[in-house]
């Protein structure tokens, strides 16, 4: 879904030290990367720090970028690994099934674009999304990452295989397993969606 050739051109300009090219990359990817980090950590502060660190790392390592791969794959790979490392370091409460609580121990709310008074269905939808978000936040990190790459970032199976350096079959199996987990966790809390 990302334009590979366009990215390659921009990256080559980055390697020549053109500041505008770096800004273009940020323009294209800061949203996806920030959101990936946010959903991985469920914490806005951490997401900002991690997202920035990912770009800092990528921008200082451009000489190591292998042009046979898509830049987006490389970027998502670094971001995914960085988040998983962060979670591992902090030993968060993975899979603590006493849900409803974010990592800071506070309830938090998903912000949807606000458009005047909300009818019941919109409210229900919002609540359901919030529960789903919660459940994703409690998946084990590898399953969480793969679910987000597929659904939040809308990458194809092939792209995910390239990002994670995994065989296509493993990617499919993991995504299926992750969704089954989500479904089980929703059911376990009697959440209806």
């Amino acid at each position, binding site marked *: 879904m990302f334009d590979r050739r366009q990215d390659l051109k921009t990256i*080559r300009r*980055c*390697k*020549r*030290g053109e*500041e505008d090219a*770096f*800004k273009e990359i*940020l323009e294209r990817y*800061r*949203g996806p990367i*920030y*959101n990936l980090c*946010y*959903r991985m950590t469920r914490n*806005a502060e951490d997401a*900002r720090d991690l*997202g*920035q660190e990912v*770009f*800092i790392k990528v*921008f*200082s390592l*451009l*000489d190591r970028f292998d042009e046979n791969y898509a830049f987006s794959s490389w970027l998502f790979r670094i971001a995914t690994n960085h988040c998983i490392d962060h979670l591992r370091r902090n030993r968060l409460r993975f899979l603590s099934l006493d849900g409803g609580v974010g990592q800071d121990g506070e309830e938090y709310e*998903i*912000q*949807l*674009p606000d458009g005047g008074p909300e009818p019941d269905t919109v409210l229900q939808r919002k609540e*359901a*999304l919030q529960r*789903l*978000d919660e459940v*994703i936040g409690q998946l084990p990190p590898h399953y969480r990452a793969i*679910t987000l790459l*597929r*659904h*939040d970032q*809308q990458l194809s*199976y092939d792209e995910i295989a390239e990002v994670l350096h995994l065989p296509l079959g493993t990617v*499919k199996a993991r*995504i*299926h397993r992750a*969704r089954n987990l*989500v*479904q089980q966790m*929703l059911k376990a809390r009697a959440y209806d*969606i």
Partner: protein
Amino acid sequence: MDGREHQEDVTLACADTRDRLQGYLDGTLAKSESVAIFLHLRDCGGCREEHEHLQAMFSMLDELPQLPVPDDFDARILDSIPLAAYREMEPLRRDRVPVFLEESYLPAWLRDARTRLAGLSVTLAAVIAVAVADQPQPLLLAAVVGAVPEILVRCQGWARQATLAWRRAEN
């Protein structure tokens, strides 16, 4: 299909269908498999319900709202970029050619103008001598050998220029 006749077949078909529902929704199944599942869903209330559940979950997963990125996100990143280093590296990177195209790959004595000139003189003398000689083969050989240093240096130079031009065009 005729699964309804045998309870066992029904459960098998259901188990099979449920295994593949995700692939069905992802659109990654073979056409024949998709059709089989479509038909099963039409006939089986239990699987249909499962399908609807899954479909609802998929659409919710796809719809998780995107958060706005904090305004000050870029500043720290832009400050950290080693722009100067990239600019310094650039000419080196751009003018890099394969080792065998570098001048120093050929020995200095061979690149020496005197060697090349001497070689060409041999070639010239040999070519002239061929016209009057009874045995032209050794002279032809001398003509070719004499031209070798000049040919090597020239060809390497052209190949180097072409590589550099191609590199620059690519960027």
